[in-house]
Each structure stands twice: as structure tokens, then as C-alpha cells.
């Protein structure tokens, strides 16, 4: 008898596991809203947000973020939208990403901070951090989190997106890299994190759609997409981000060139850890702003 719980190549060949991995994100976005419950993700783009030389315009980022959050929550204005997510008494950790080759843009961090202050949250109760979150006193006593990082491919998880961004909430990140980082969803149940994340956003201003190796940045595979992807459901945001990178690979290479690993952790976050929706047909994607070469 075959050992229990061992998943081999043959399981994929016979289709049981392969169907799940292969059809990871379903068959595409719905063309119209259906009766089935959907999550909402907002993609907003602006042709002027990044200059040809790569400079990011802070005022445009602020405007994009405001419009995205407003649309996400169906609010009448930005203040109303942020007021639905946070209250004055909140202690908010903004989980950023400091990878030196492609960090969360400072302009986006500042835009988030601005709106948290506008809600009335005391400045001392707001902190933006990445690798120091475990020792950061604001994160330790946080009542709310914002998750903001750039969209890119990643050696261990296929894509570096919102789910992956919380890996710094554990002291042993290497323990979460097996099976395409599928255990990442477990991190979201830790007390420091569980139930606190109010907003998830991917900076797709200049995403990286392909790459190789553990930490390599390759400018040949970075493009100025000039977008933000925003949602309350991290799985849906990540599924949209992964789909965007896939569409770009197909446009660039003429095929979906294989990543080091398939981003199956996004499906795992849905099916195993029940953190959100990974099936694109159950995600309502609201597209705002500049639509040239939108890909989605």
C-alpha cells in the first residue's frame, strides 16, 4: 500500500491534485455580477503616477488610494470610507515591505499614514514596519493592521503578495517555505495578526512579473503598470495580483513561463485556512482609472 499523506508526481498525473493546482484561480473574472457571494477587489491605475525615470508622484498615489478605498467600501467619500475601517482608538500597524530592490513605495506608506491620522488616530499609535514587527510595541498592542507591499514574483512562493507579506510575524520564516509556502495561511491565525487586517493592498506601480532565484531583481521583467490593487480579502487581492503577473508573462513571453514554484499558497489560504476567496469567478474586480494595457 502506498503511504498515507504522501503526494507524488503520480497524483498530479492522474489529475486529482493537478486539477487543483492547475486551475488555481478558476476560469477568470465574472462578466456580470451573479447571485453567488463575491468578494470585491479594486484595481486603480493612473498614467501619471510614475515618471519615465521612475519617480513616484505622492499626490497621485494619495488620490489613487482614496478612490480605491472609497470604491471598495461603496462610500460617499474618502473620509467616510476610512471611517468605516478604523476608529480613533485604534492602534494600527502598517505592515510594509523593505526589500531594498523593490520596497513598498514611501509615497504609499505616507498616504496610508495620512488617512489614518485623518481618522483621528494618535500618531504614536501608528507604526509602519517590516522586519521589526515582532519587536515593535505598536504592532504588539495593535488593534488593526494594514498590509501593503509591492507585487512581484518570488522564489519560494511563486508570487510575493499580501499573504506572503506577513511572514515577518513569525520568528522562523524559513519554516513556511515548503510546498510553495502553502503554510503561510497559518500565520494569519496567530494572535498578533488574527482578525486585525482591515486593508490589503498591492503596489502594482512597477511590478516584477518574472524572475529567478532567491533574491534577484531583474529590471528586464519589471514594468510600469501604474496600479494599486486594494481589498479587504487578502486572498482575493493576491489572486488578482497573481493573475496580473501571469497575464503579463503571457504577453511578454508568448506563454506562461513557469515560475520557480506555482503560487499554490493562495489557493491553500482559501481552501485550507479559509482566509478568503481565490476563485477569480467569485471576485468582483472594479477597474478604475487608466485602462491601457490593463491586462485584467
Amino acid at each position, binding site marked *: *500500500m*502506498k*503511504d*498515507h*499523506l*504522501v*503526494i*507524488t*508526481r*503520480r*497524483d*498530479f*498525473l*492522474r*489529475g*486529482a*491534485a493537478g486539477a*487543483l493546482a492547475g486551475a488555481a484561480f478558476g476560469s477568470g473574472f465574472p462578466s456580470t455580477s451573479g447571485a453567488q457571494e463575491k468578494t470585491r477587489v479594486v484595481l486603480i491605475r493612473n498614467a501619471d503616477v510614475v515618471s519615465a525615470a521612475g519617480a513616484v508622484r505622492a499626490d497621485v498615489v494619495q488620490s489613487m488610494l482614496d478612490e480605491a478605498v472609497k470604491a471598495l467600501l461603496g462610500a460617499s467619500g474618502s473620509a467616510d470610507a476610512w471611517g468605516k475601517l478604523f476608529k480613533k482608538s485604534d492602534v494600527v500597524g502598517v505592515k510594509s515591505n523593505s*526589500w531594498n530592490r523593490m520596497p513598498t513605495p514611501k509615497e504609499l506608506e505616507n498616504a496610508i499614514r495620512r488617512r489614518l491620522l485623518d481618522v483621528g488616530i494618535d500618531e504614536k499609535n501608528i507604526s509602519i514596519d517590516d*522586519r521589526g514587527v515582532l519587536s515593535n510595541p505598536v504592532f504588539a498592542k495593535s488593534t488593526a493592521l494594514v498590509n501593503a507591499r509591492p507585487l512581484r514574483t*518570488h*522564489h*519560494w512562493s511563486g508570487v510575493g503578495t499580501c499573504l506572503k507579506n506577513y*511572514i*515577518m510575524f513569525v520568528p*522562523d*520564516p*524559513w*519554516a513556511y*517555505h*515548503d*510546498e510553495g509556502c*502553502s*503554510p503561510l495561511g497559518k500565520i494569519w491565525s496567530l494572535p498578533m495578526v488574527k482578525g486585525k487586517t482591515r486593508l490589503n493592498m498591492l503596489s502594482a506601480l512597477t511590478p516584477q512579473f518574472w524572475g*529567478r*532565484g*532567491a*533574491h*534577484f531583481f*531583474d*529590471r*528586464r*521583467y519589471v514594468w510600469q503598470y501604474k496600479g494599486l490593487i486594494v481589498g479587504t480579502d487578502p486572498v482575493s487581492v493576491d489572486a488578482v495580483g497573481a493573475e496580473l503577473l501571469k497575464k503579463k508573462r503571457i504577453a511578454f513571453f508568448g506563454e506562461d513561463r513557469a515560475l*520557480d*514554484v506555482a503560487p*499554490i499558497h493562495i*489557493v*491553500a489560504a482559501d*481552501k*485550507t485556512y479559509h482566509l478568503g476567496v481565490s476563485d477569480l469567478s467569485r471576485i468582483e474586480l472594479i477597474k478604475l482609472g487608466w485602462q491601457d494595457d490593463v491586462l485584467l
Partner: protein
Amino acid sequence: MYLNVSFKPAFTLIAGLSLMLFFSWGDTFAAEKDTMNAKLSLPSETKGWTWDGKDETFNNQTIFKYIDGAGELYLAYGFRGLTVRRFEGPGKPLLVAEIYEMGSSEDAYGVFTFERQEEEADVGQGSEFGGGLLRFWKGVYFVSVYGEGEGAEMDSAVLELGKRIAESIKVPGSKPALLGFLPDKTFGLDTANMYFFRSHVLLNQRFFVAHQNILQLGRDVEAVLGPYDREGKRMHLVLVRYPSNKRAQDAFQTFVRAYMPEAAASGSVKTEDGKWTRIRAYGEFLAIVFGALTEAEAEKLLAVTGTNLKGKTR
């Protein structure tokens, strides 16, 4: 749902593996810390760029801070230490050299080839250059050099700096001997895509076999993956060397039990895609062919491997 049942044991496995790597090399590194620069006389300038005078060093406990949580790739190849040297020039983008000391020259070769995709750049014992990044290996060192800008001047400086670092590495190394036991190009071997590894996680990234470590790979085990093109179809040969015949036999058993339980006696099975998988042990070696169009073709590759191993087994 397969995801539910597979995570727990695999998670435990990788966590265990990682912790084993993490702690077993700690003492070694402590003794060898700060010796890299003593061994190498790294250049202090190149083509208008000058060393900023500060080397950053990382060990097996701190590498995760430098490589954004992706240090396992290096740990899986016996990582001992990393020196990062930066070069500045007036009005010029930064030039960064990363010099990784690996467990052996085979490991340096392994980490280099694991991610290779560009054209050879004639630096060190094997290299590539593309997108402003130079990667090469020589001796026990794997080196990457990149510029934070672009253009001909930067590319030239990257290549020149790489050559000078390579010159500072006085002792060349050997490629894994296992590569020489694979049936050669006349059998369709794709030499540009051969890989040397010790970790099943890395094997799976290049050719998925099983989430669990059914071949019992580890730091004291050497393995190579050889892709073969026959009649427009691709098959793969995995050749593994264990520290002992017993370890090889144990791995034979765990592999057969998990992967081809119906073929324990014959060592050969027609898999769900209509192709053949065949396994054979040769002393402390295991050879497995995946994806052969016929059983005879799988046997042919194994037979040639056996011939290549004659006189090499214990």
C-alpha cells in the same frame, strides 16, 4: 482535498530540515567567521568605482535578514558565510558584489547552476551575465555582482569586477562527480539544464517528485537531475549517492512504497501519463528514470548509468 492532508507532515519535515541546517552549521561558522576576507584579497576598486570601505558579513543565522527570508537556497548548499562589498563612484549607481562561501566546490557549482539561465560570460569556472547581473562560481565560492544602474559602462564595470574577484580566488574546485555518471549527450542529455542538489525541496522546484522526502535526501547525500530529450519528448534521470549502501536501500524502499507500490518487485511502472518510471540501486547509488516512452528506453538509460558506475561503487 489534498491540500488538507499534505501540509502537516510536509511542514514538519521542512521545519525540521531547516532547523537541522540552521543549528548544525552554527558552530562551524563561528570558527570560520571573518576568515573569508583573510582567504581572499578582494579588489577595492574597478573602472571608476571604489570600495566604500565597509564589508557586510552574514552567517547562517543572519543570512535571512539579507536575502528577504530566502536563505534556504544557500543553506541547502552548505552555506558558510557571505561578504557583501559595495562600490561607489561620483555620480554613479552603486555596484554590489556578494561573495558566498559554500560547503564545497560542488555546492558552489550547485547553487550557481540551480538558477542559471543566461549565456556564459567566461568568468570563474562557470558564469552567466544578463540584466546587469553577473553570477559565477569558482572553488568553494559562488559570487554575484550587480549594478544598480544600467548601460554599457555599468555592464563593463560589473564584468571587470567579477573577473577581479575570480582572480582573487586562487584554488579552483571540482564539479560534482555524479554528473559524469549520467548517460551523455548521445542519449539526449540536456547539459544546460542539469542540476546538482541535496534537498528534496530543490529537486521539486526543478522536477516535482513528491512533497515528502521519499528519496531521503539531505546534507550528506548528493544528487543530480539529468533531463533527456528523445523523439521530441522529455524524460528525467535522477541519480543519488548516499553515504552507505544501507542508506541507499532504505531510500529505495521509501521511494518504491510511496511512488510505485505496485512495482516493488519489478522496479518498473507505467504511470498515469502512459510513460514509464524505473528504479535501480547500484551499491550506494540509486538511479530513477521518469517519463520514458517505453520500459526498454528506461532500462537503456539505467543500463548505461550502471556501466558508468562500474568500479565506482563500494
